[in-house]
């Protein structure tokens, strides 16, 4: 079922990514930030994908810790790698926007710092998986749970602490000219994130099958 859906969904995602720049170009400028605010469309969408990926990894890790099912572990690894990739996009595009809007590349405020911490936790997860040796899968799963626990803090940080970063009220209050392109980009990012999760999970499955094959050869 998933394999049959993959190619049509990939075509839709590619078409959406090709069309998104035209929608963003036609969206109105923001009154105080001007052109640079247009980074928002992909930056915030990548941020939503980041939260989704962190939840996928955290939930997969929780299921793996409680049930020891390899399938859950595969999903957790895929989610963690996607979190790192989307986190890199968020953490690079954010400062590019900030340099123009705030006059600085980086500010150690709650949103930026908590996002960086979350990104580093998922990097730690991947490093543990790569170099941790036997048993590191369970330790890494616990690390992923801590990473997922950061998501609510990252989300609400802008509303709770005084920060330079726009608050969460920006998205519900978007004006019609900005709302359409933004949600279009969000759907494109969530779709491409889902497809990447599918392919990355498949890669992890094949790796486990290869390990089993090597064990069969040794026997």
């Amino acid at each position: 079922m998933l394999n049959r859906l993959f190619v049509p969904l990939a075509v839709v995602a590619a078409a959406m990514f090709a069309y998104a720049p035209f929608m963003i170009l036609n969206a109105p400028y923001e009154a105080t930030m001007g052109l640079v605010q247009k980074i928002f469309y992909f930056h915030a969408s990548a941020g939503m994908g980041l939260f989704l990926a962190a939840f996928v990894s955290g939930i997969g890790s929780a299921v793996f810790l409680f049930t020891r099912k390899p399938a859950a572990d595969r999903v957790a690894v895929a989610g963690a790698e996607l979190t790192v990739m989307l986190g890199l996009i968020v953490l690079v595009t954010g400062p590019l926007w900030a340099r123009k809007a705030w006059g600085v590349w980086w500010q150690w405020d709650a949103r930026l710092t908590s996002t960086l911490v979350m990104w580093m936790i998922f990097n730690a997860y991947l490093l543990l998986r790569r170099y941790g040796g036997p048993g590191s899968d369970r330790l890494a799963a616990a690390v992923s749970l801590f990473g997922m626990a950061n998501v609510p803090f990252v989300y609400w940080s802008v509303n709770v602490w005084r920060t330079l970063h726009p608050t969460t009220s920006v998205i519900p209050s978007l004006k019609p000219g900005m709302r359409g392109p933004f949600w279009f980009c969000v759907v494109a990012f969530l779709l491409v994130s889902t497809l990447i999760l599918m392919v990355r999970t498949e890669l992890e499955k094949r790796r486990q099958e290869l390990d089993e094959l090597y064990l069969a050869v040794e026997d």
Partner: protein
Amino acid sequence: MIKKAVYALLLVAVLGGTPAFAQTTPPKTPTAGQDDFVPVSAPINANDTIPAPRLVAIAYGFIWVVLFGYLWSVRSRLGRVEREMETVSRRVSAGRK
């Protein structure tokens, strides 16, 4: 089983509840562009020292490079694993003969 379910519920309660408690701090003063975006028809401050078009182009270029680079990396890793599986499978079947 019940013990595990209780642990899971406690974990969800802690993760979901903490930010709600943290929201009791006094509200901050809103600044322009922070609580809502106001649309205008033309860009402002066209003579700024760092041109916004360059920053926007770098941001979108970076996103495309990372996304497609990552997709290419996953695809090539998948291809490598599949080739290795074929080689090992051949060795296994040759060993059985």
